């Protein structure tokens, strides 16, 4: 019973991890940009959700969608103004996005205040199956993550935009030659990645604290997760989320949270050393 509960918990944690890592897959995997402000993008999504859902009384699902679009819009602006000029310069991008994270954090702090914001849990309650209690919101998380994953996969592999995007990451100059507007593709990809982060923030808002500093706890986790998954690969990241989420959950269950977190972290570091291309990536020349 305990194990069954832990597996369900692990599944929900995995889904959350995947949800807030998806944006990183887009931005780090496909654009080779390490967005140090990823946590702040999550935070912005959570704030948009707070203002729409708690303050303005907009229905939750609509607030979720709005969080996505508003943060995506913000992402597009950031790409146009800052990231665009820094492609190929890893160090500069890291520093610029770090600067961005400082600025966003402090602006939100000054404008919205530093206190934790209250966001009610939209699907309150739980169901019990054979003695395993599963909160409805956890089920919602799992379902919505699956949907977002599926939607992203569709966009990736089944639409002309996805094809262009994959082409752009594969071979830039070649893609330019084919008459594809790489700049527009870049902007859209970045905006989509940031939008996903904002969406994740809105999903996190009801069950986690919403504050200007909330982003920090998600950044390294999502970077590590995407590294394990193999940077560009959606199924890889999904699998690694499952692996990390479940192992943290089970180790935490039989041991304790502190040690579980550290052990998983160490394993990830060692893994990156031996398979820098990710766990699930085939050997390439």
């Amino acid at each position, binding site marked *: 019973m305990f194990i069954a509960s832990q597996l369900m918990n692990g599944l929900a944690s995995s889904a959350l991890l995947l949800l807030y890592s998806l944006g990183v897959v887009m931005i780090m995997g496909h654009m*080779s940009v*390490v967005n*140090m402000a990823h946590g702040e993008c999550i935070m912005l999504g959570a704030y948009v959700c707070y203002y729409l859902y708690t303050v303005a009384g907009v229905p939750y699902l609509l607030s979720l969608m709005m969080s996505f679009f508003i943060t995506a819009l913000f992402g597009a602006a950031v790409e146009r103004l*800052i990231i665009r*000029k*820094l492609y190929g310069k*890893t*160090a*500069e991008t*890291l*520093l*610029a996005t*770090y*600067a*961005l994270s*400082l*600025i966003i*954090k*402090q*602006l939100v*702090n*000054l404008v919205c205040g530093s206190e934790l914001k209250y966001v009610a849990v939209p699907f309150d309650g739980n169901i019990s199956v054979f003695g395993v209690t599963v909160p409805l919101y956890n089920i919602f998380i799992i379902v919505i993550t699956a949907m977002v994953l599926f939607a992203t996969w569709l966009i990736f592999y089944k639409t002309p935009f996805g094809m262009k995007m994959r082409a752009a990451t594969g071979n830039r100059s070649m893609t330019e030659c084919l008459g594809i507007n790489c700049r527009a593709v870049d902007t859209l990809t970045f905006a989509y990645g940031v939008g996903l982060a904002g969406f994740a923030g809105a999903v996190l808002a009801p069950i986690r604290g919403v504050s200007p500093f909330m982003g920090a706890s998600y950044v*390294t986790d999502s*970077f*590590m997760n995407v*590294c394990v998954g193999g940077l560009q690969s959606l199924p890889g990241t999904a699998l690694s989320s499952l692996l990390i989420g479940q192992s943290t959950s089970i180790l935490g269950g039989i041991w304790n949270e*502190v040690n579980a*977190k*550290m052990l998983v*972290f*160490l394993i*990830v*570091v060692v893994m*990156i*050393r*031996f398979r*820098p291309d990710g766990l699930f990536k085939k050997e390439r020349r």
Partner: protein
Amino acid sequence: MLGKLKKLPVNRYIDAGILVFLLVFPLFANNYRVGFMGKTAAYMIFALSLDLLWGYTGLMSFGHAVLFGLGGYMVGLSFTFSGGVPDFMSRMGITELPWFASVLQNEYIASLLGIIIPGALAAILGYFIFYSKVKGIFFSLITMALAQIFETFFANQSAITNGTSGLGGLPRRFFGIELRVKPFYYLTVGVVILVYALCLRLSCSRFGKALTSIREDENRLSFVGYNPAKFKIAVFAISGMLAGLAGMLFVPFNGMISPTELGINLSTSVLVWIAIGGRGNLTGAMLGTLIVNWLQTLLSEFSADIWPLVLGGMILAVIFVIPTGIVGKLKELQYNANARKTLREISQKEELPNE
């Protein structure tokens, strides 16, 4: 003709300026300011150590504070254990010191360990990372994870490290020498000068040239007959030792050490200092540290709220306006002026016989 280019680069004048500034500073400042400047001087050593790694070799470490903090913790633990079981331990019901305490109680050994352990950790990590051909961004990500692990680890070993509260009440001692603020300040400045001289010597040596070549094109270097991995491990270890030394000098001024001193925040901050000052020329690391830290205290005395905005703005301004940093830009200007002259002279010479 060559004389003009061989003139002293502009950054050496700035170095001299910083040095003079550090030396005369206590004559005009109160003890609080001197203590603050001492911390900044320790940070300068730290920044110099990272400049070797990032500025020269192109390895952007996001966990350099781990090495700095380890150095600090070695002396911090040594002082804490020197008086027997510390208060925080006895309150948790611990009556005996851990096994390694007897080693750390010896101040000299602890001080040596403060240099050796960060160096060794860097070397071991380097061995793992550089021989596996982990590339640029992964080095940053692994070191970032390292900072996270160590911060969590030190925060959670509360029975030994007093957790997030850290070790407090640490004296101003360095290798057994206990001094008042100003003398200790001069001791620190002395170490800064030594470290600076060492870094200068390293960067001008063949070793330094090899490091720069690694930054420029690691593969090409291996075709000239160097093993880049060994060089990277060596510079990481040297940089680690210097970072540990910086931590050991920082702690006495700070009076305490806590897990934030080995976390991601400090690691990122020091990268920012170097970026603003200009990387790969030592001067930039020192100047950046000085400017950013001064600005920070000064602005926070007016309004604490605007500092993150100012810092963020400064970073963006540097990246877009002077990507090579303050000192880098100055060097560029000087070089361009001199190069233009030289090239003009060469072309004049070549044209003459043709006419």
